[in-house]
């Protein structure tokens, strides 16, 4: 399990750039509140991360889709992603009996990754919601349909103090079933009822039916902070994923594109199935 990574200067520069991007101070403006006094988390939220940008049309009328790639070489786009994922220091600690499986999926599991096969990313891999609808008794999370998140999805999370329904606990679902409560200005969501098909991350991080996920969400100005902690019998200790931040989309005309079918067509054409990045 212990592999050491030797990073080139180019990769190091990308890591530094990404790290610096996380140090942007949050806005200090007041957090809007709902009538019941809780922070208002409603709105469209854009994940702050290293992403492609559409530019144009330029003077010639042409349009460029820029993908973040080392040395401006688009061929490095996925290689960079793989290096960043594998060089990450924050890793779940699995019990020894699972080490071989996780390592094999990490290095050889290209076509076994559920997201590769158009399956949902699941919670917590799906990350923070892309839109939030909030009422005093429940909060609704909407997730846009994108390659790395899987199909569009939604979660309806009660905030009225109820516990999980017995049928939810007995279910095996991709997103689990969450119940939420406020701890001061932080929304805490505890979810159960997961399947054992989703991965926690790109690097083959599997989990069992016993997984519980606790998400903590708070708003600072127009920045949404999200983190999730996974507890599972496959792990030696609970694992907290790296926090993620989203920024409020100020566009009053913001919208989601409609969801589209997902059909995996690449697997049959792949020459080297062991190349994941």
């Amino acid at each position, binding site marked *: 399990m212990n592999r050491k990574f030797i990073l080139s200067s180019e990769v190091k520069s*990308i890591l530094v750039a990404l790290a610096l991007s996380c140090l942007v101070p949050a806005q200090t403006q007041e957090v809007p509140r709902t009538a019941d006094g809780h922070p208002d988390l409603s709105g469209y939220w854009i994940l702050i991360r290293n992403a492609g940008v*559409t530019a*144009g049309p330029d003077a010639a009328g042409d349009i460029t*889709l*820029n993908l973040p790639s080392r040395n401006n070489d688009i061929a*490095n786009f996925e290689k960079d992603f793989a290096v960043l994922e594998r060089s990450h220091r924050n890793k779940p600690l699995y019990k020894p009996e699972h080490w071989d499986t996780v390592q094999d999926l990490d290095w050889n599991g290209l076509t076994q990754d559920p997201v590769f096969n158009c399956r949902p990313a699941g919670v917590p891999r799906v990350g923070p919601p892309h839109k939030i609808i909030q009422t005093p008794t429940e909060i609704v999370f909407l997730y846009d349909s994108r390659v*790395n998140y899987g199909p569009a999805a939604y979660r309806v999370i009660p905030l009225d103090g109820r516990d999980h329904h017995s049928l939810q606990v007995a279910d095996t679902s991709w997103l689990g079933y969450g119940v939420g409560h406020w701890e001061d200005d932080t929304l805490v969501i505890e979810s159960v009822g997961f399947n054992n098909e989703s991965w926690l991350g790109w690097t083959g991080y599997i989990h069992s039916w016993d997984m519980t996920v606790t998400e903590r969400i708070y708003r600072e100005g127009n920045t949404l902070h999200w983190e999730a902690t996974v507890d599972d019998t496959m792990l030696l200790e609970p694992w907290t994923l790296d926090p993620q931040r989203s920024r409020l989309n100020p566009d009053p005309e913001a919208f989601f594109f409609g969801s589209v079918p997902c059909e995996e067509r690449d697997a049959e054409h792949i020459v080297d199935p062991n190349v994941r990045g």
Partner: protein
Amino acid sequence: MKKLKIPSMYVFLAFFLGASFMASAHHAVQAQFAVDEFETLTGVMTKVELINPHPYFYLDVDEGNGQVVNWAIESVALNALRRAGLLKELAVDREYTVEYNPARNGEPLGLMVAITLPSGTRLLMRGQDPSQ
């Protein structure tokens, strides 16, 4: 050749919303395509599949020896094409020029690097170093 008039709304969306479209990958393209080889074809669109994780475009290409081969071209994620506001410019029975990385298995299959529309507008996929 006349250039395409891009609706101002789409340009607004592309810039104002940040227009991020693919922060991680579906698969390692180098496992499927020769990413250091660049070829060009011109053909007539026969089928458009606007699906995730990657749209596919099929074009009849005259090989010059009396044979017409139907090529499959895989593109970047659909949301990227949507944000460019070009979906209705990608239609059957029209002629396109496609720059692509060829499939490593020798099939008539490529990974789209750029596509030139009948209007003359060129849609280009490009790498941009995040440290710059």
